[in-house]
């Protein structure tokens, strides 16, 4: 079987895979990093979003072998080594941007990609950017609010809606 090597959350990772092994499968099963979730098979739900060389991608719609040599970032690498949540994670907790938690890894990774590209997104821009991330619990209200808060915007007025 082919071997694949990549960097995951700053650490070297490698393993044997098949041609058909998805990046999400490699992360979850070969590396045991089960924070990346799989919620659909048509590339729509976004629970599997990770970053590959800095870009958000759906890891269930990419073969592990295509990540050869890549720099991969997952939800497991978002908090500081001492467990301190990053600004997006902290905002999700503070503003109750998650309920069952299943879509959350993808949401956090998509939010991180958005804020890198657009540090102060408007409400409409956040909503549009999340069009590839489904959440069934929150009605998106607190996810959008959390991302805007993480970008440093005052969300006090939203609370009073």
């Amino acid at each position, binding site marked *: 079987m082919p071997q694949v090597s990549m960097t995951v959350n700053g650490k070297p990772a490698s393993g044997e895979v098949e041609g058909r092994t998805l990046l999400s499968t490699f992360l979850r099963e070969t590396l045991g990093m089960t924070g990346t979730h799989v919620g659909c098979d048509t590339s729509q739900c976004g629970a599997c*979003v990770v970053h590959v060389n800095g870009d958000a991608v759906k890891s269930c719609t990419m073969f592990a072998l295509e990540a050869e040599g890549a720099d991969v970032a997952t939800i497991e690498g978002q908090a500081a080594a001492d467990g301190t949540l990053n600004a997006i994670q902290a905002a999700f907790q503070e503003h109750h941007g998650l309920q069952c938690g299943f879509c959350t890894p993808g949401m956090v990774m998509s939010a991180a990609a958005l804020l890198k590209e657009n540090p102060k997104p408007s409400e409409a821009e956040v909503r549009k950017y999340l069009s590839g991330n489904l959440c069934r619990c929150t009605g998106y209200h607190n996810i959008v609010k959390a991302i805007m808060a993480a970008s440093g915007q005052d969300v006090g007025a939203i609370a009073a809606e």
Partner: protein
Amino acid sequence: MYAFEFERPSTVADAAKALGEEDAQALGGGQTLIPTLKQRLAMPSKLVSLSGIAEIKGVCKADDGALCVGGGTTHATVASEAKADYPALAALAGNIGDPAVRNRGTIGGSIANNDPAACYPSAVLASGATVVTNKREIAADDYFQGLFETALDEGEIVTEVRFPVPEKASYQKFEQPASRFALVGVFVAKYADGVRVAVTGASESGVFRWSEAEAALSSNFAPEALDGMAPPADGMISDLHGSADYRAHLVGVIARRAVAAAS
């Protein structure tokens, strides 16, 4: 997924060679092919990933002013790099799928697949673009041949698409609410020698040029030129998201909006 061999060549020549094997299939960004494989609706013996081929990636400008987009260029790259030269094309690319899909999906993959509801075919057709492959150049009008059908031969690789840049253009999409593919998408492009209008999402035969609209707009490039116009409902797709009548009606509405938005 069925098992297959996987190869990731770094040159078009090597890719073409790999694709010469029986039942080998090219893999662009995989955003359609991988879901298809998961459903076990395809059974390639080998997948040849084009993602490692630097020579078919990127956006540049040809001497004749045409915008050249490498076949392996992602939608995200087109959205940012075509913005200055062909803003309507960049806007189209920046609105395909979602951000994660745009970071993987490629123009070559999209037009090789020729999904009847995909966005890119309308841009290629409305721009009168040239599809360049590892073997030949194909005019857009000859390239699209119906649902999921193109002029490509087995194993032929789209290496580049050359877009003549119009004076004004716009792509407007009315989304199918579930897939967010085009329920109806209309690309309008105004050139010195006339207007081209291509419609995606609507027809049972895939992307098509709406010649009546082209004629009307060539004499008067204004939304009002299309007032009351819609293509015949005959041959339009009818499904749970909309009837043929509705799609035909939308083509008129969305075309007028595209003309109004053209810049």
